[in-house]
């Protein structure tokens, strides 16, 4: 069972529907016992980094996620959920993340040429940087849906895929059993469903 972390951030409706569509059992929960029983954990998130990180810490879910990830359970962060896996973010101040992945979350406008709009919104092609089981059912160049104004600056070792938007933007990351997608698989049509299937099969 995939446990989707409920911490009052973001729209999880489509995630639940996506797992239903691919026949994978999923449940929304903030219950630590359920999270530790689950085979996989998914950390969603839309909104501001600072608020979300505070919510994870004030509920103690931050410890649970770090412990479960260190035990080897597959963990996937989506959009802001991916960003929260990193060490820190510079979105409206400096905020500490879960520190499961090395790197910082930085503003896109300092990286990309000014002709490019912010947020980076729409369908962009994935360019694979490493083989990954997360992508076992999709191919290099497939399109996925992005909406974000900040990006993950990370080491090459954890970069699974990028998308070209004036610069190569981090699109997917992984380190061991910890995975992250900057884009929204639950909004990326059939390609997105196949990424979620790849995750559930880990």
């Amino acid at each position, binding site marked *: 069972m995939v446990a989707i972390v409920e911490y009052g951030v973001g*729209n999880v409706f489509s995630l639940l529907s996506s797992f239903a569509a691919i026949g994978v059992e999923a449940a929304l929960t903030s219950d630590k016992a359920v999270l530790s029983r689950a085979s996989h954990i998914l950390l969603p998130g839309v909104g501001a980094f600072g608020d979300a990180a505070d919510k994870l810490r004030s509920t103690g879910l931050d410890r649970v996620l770090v412990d479960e990830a260190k035990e080897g359970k597959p963990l996937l962060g989506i959009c802001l959920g991916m960003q929260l896996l990193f060490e820190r973010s510079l979105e409206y101040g400096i905020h500490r993340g879960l520190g499961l992945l090395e790197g910082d979350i930085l503003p896109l406008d300092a990286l990309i040429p000014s002709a490019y*709009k*912010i947020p980076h*919104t729409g369908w*962009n092609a994935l360019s694979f940087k490493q083989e990954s089981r997360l992508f076992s059912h999709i191919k290099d160049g497939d399109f996925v849906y992005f909406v974000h104004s900040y990006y993950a600056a990370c080491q090459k070792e954890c970069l699974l895929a990028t998308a070209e938007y004036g610069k190569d933007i981090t699109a997917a990351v992984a380190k061991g059993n910890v995975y992250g997608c900057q884009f929204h698989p639950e*909004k990326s049509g059939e390609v997105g469903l196949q990424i979620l299937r790849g995750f559930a099969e880990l």
Partner: protein
Amino acid sequence: MITKRIIPCLDVRDGRVVKGTNFQNLNDVNSPVALGRYYSASGADELVFYDITASGEERKLFTDILTEVAKNVFIPLTVGGGINTIEDFDRVLHAGADKVSVNSGAIRSPSLIAKAAEKYGNQCVVLSVDVKRVDGVFRVFAKGGRENTGKEALSWIKWCVENGAGEVVVNSIDTDGVKKGFDIPLLSAVCELVRVPVIASGGAGSISDFVDLFREIPSIDAGLAASVFHYGEVNIASLKDTLAENDIPVRRL
């Protein structure tokens, strides 16, 4: 490379899509779920559902239908129509919408944009604006294009973006329904003004109108239309093939 988005807009009343008659292989041409699936399968990049109901009871039906669509269609869904308060944002987002478009509601209560952006993020707040030339000046119209608010359109759009609108749908009343192409001068002016995505609406009559749009305004992000898609005059897959032949980046299935 980011692709140009093609967005069909569906008007919903009494839980049914208004318009939409010429589809083959579609048993129920007025079902939002069937049409949502159809458009998604033909390569639509996003869907806009516009609630044209009036009463609260019908509004409940609209949100129920939205939930059905969201359970079955995995591309971004934007909802517009009757969005006047934060509670309206809550209602449609909980029913499965990804973005919410505000038009008259923002004109009546401009603080709605900032409130919604603070609660849900700019990416969730879409400003929809109906624009018409009056004595050579772009003016904002309300109530479905019937009422001149007197507001100058470009300064209104800029203000809304500065206050949290993360995307702008610009509907030209002058070209809407004429089917002779998008309003290039208006759309160019908006694109030069703001750095958020801009969606063109009003005037699409054929595939070549979309080609012209993306060629003449390289910074426009998306083209939105209703009847040309619903009546089958423009097929989305063929449209995207033609755009690709013209070196306009699109997502093809």
